[in-house]
């Protein structure tokens, strides 16, 4: 459903991606692994339209979305949970979730989606009126995921959801990602914590210096 081919991105003089290619199929969890600075975040940003690639092509469900604007891409159900969670610390949990549904104009539909996010992430329901910044790291990650769910993703892209979390919490986050996947959403999971990611992923890619150096099913990786 997502096909990235020969993507090149540079920031000023620095080339971050040099011919990055990957695919994500319907219903899959695909892990994208690599060291600091390998180009994982840049890959996600390019797919969601936040940075403009210099060359290459991004196709989603058969359409070329290489130069599409972020709102359009989100509207297509391709939703990005950015690195470092980026939740709104001065807004409540509930308001954060509402942001996820910004493109949903129908109030009933929006309320339904928010309720479904609360069902999947009951911790959030308890903290509905609490400010985002006062949540624990794990709860913030859950909120970031919940917010993305409200956007109605068919492909969810997560950037290092395990960052800075205790092992037990990492496991809980991975369980939630698996649940989301089993409900029918494809997942592109960027991680440095390869062990945790490969536990739930079907396939994986290892990237280095802006291109893919290894790929295959999760188990052998």
């Amino acid at each position, binding site marked *: 459903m997502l096909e990235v081919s020969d993507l090149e991105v540079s920031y000023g003089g620095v080339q971050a991606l040099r011919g990055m290619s990957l695919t994500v199929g319907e219903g899959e969890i695909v892990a994208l692994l690599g060291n600091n600075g390998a180009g994982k975040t840049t890959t996600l940003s390019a797919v969601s339209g936040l940075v403009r690639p210099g060359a290459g092509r991004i196709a989603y469900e058969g359409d070329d979305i290489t130069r599409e604007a972020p709102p359009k*891409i989100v509207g297509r159900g391709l939703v990005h949970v950015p690195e470092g969670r980026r939740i*709104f610390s001065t807004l409540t949990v509930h308001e954060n979730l509402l942001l996820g549904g910004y493109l949903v104009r129908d109030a009933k539909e929006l309320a339904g989606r928010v309720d479904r996010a609360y069902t999947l992430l009951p911790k959030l329901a308890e903290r*509905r009126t*609490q*400010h985002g910044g*006062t*949540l624990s790291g794990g709860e913030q990650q859950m909120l970031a995921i919940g917010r993305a769910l409200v*956007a109605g993703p068919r492909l969810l892209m997560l950037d290092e959801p395990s960052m800075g979390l205790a092992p037990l919490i990492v496991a809980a986050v991975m369980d939630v990602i698996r649940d989301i996947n089993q409900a029918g959403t494809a997942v592109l999971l960027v991680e440095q914590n390869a062990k945790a990611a490969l536990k739930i992923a079907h396939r994986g890619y290892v990237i280095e210096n802006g291109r893919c150096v290894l790929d295959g099913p999760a188990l052998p990786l």
Partner: protein
Amino acid sequence: MSAGNGAAVQDPPVKPVKGRGPTFVTRFLESRHLGWAGLAVGLLAPFIIATPYAMDVMTSAVVFVMLAVGLNIVVGYCGLLDLGYAAFFAVGAYTSGVLSTELKLPLLATIPAVIVVTVLAGVIIGGPTLRLRSDYLAIVTLGFGEIIRITANNLSITGGPSGIYGIPGLFGDASSDPVVFYYAVLLIVAVAVLMAARLGRSRIGRAWRFVREDEDAAEAMGINTYKVKLAAYIAGAVWGGLAGVLFAAQLSAISPASFTFLQSALVLMAVVLGGMGSTPGVVLGAIVISLLPEMLRGLADYRFFAFGVLLIIVMIARPQGLWPHRSRER
């Protein structure tokens, strides 16, 4: 959950509300009746004191409220730093001043033209700069404020340094009673405040807050941040321009000296002092900023010094503003 629990968590970026439940007072302060109470105070004020001087001061304060509420859309709701807001005030005042004196129109009839011109000015300034990172906006707006003032100083149609005289009242050249004029201004500004507060709670208002909090995350969630910022900037421009019409009506004469950087800075101060993004806060901030120097008149030459000291004390004691924004969505 109660707000008190928030305090137990380490390092909260927002100051949690003090550990009390909602008292009658706090409930009243957050209720919707508050705006009506504020309006009632405004309506009753002339019954307490109605000297021409007092009416003049109060009318200026109400016009200043309109400016602050308009700038609050830009700075408070959307987080865009505008250092030249007086420019829109000037554009509105001059547009209605020129049209009304040249074409002999009542000021109210110039309002559609004022709206068109301020929207255009907003698009011309905001259009290119809002594509850049937000920091540039502060510099560009600072320059814009000066350019407008210097232009008005040098054009003949704006009367150069001496400005425009003999601007008719709101409803034509009625030799209007200051009390009647005060009430007219109060009602217009009340509607403007209400509309700004509504905007803040609407869908676009929510988008403004998301952009203010984290532009990149807002973009990632599908908000067209450029359009949203431009909308805030244009709304601010229109509010500022309409305040300019009221200003022209009050003084019946305008000159470039009224639209200096100091004016922009004072409006910004009202927004920050009152509490960015909070409508009651900003209204209060504007009233304090405009009335305090009058009340300190007894101190003669020291009054601006005392004014500065008081502002510093308030900002230290209440860094979030006198009356910070609290979200209503639960």
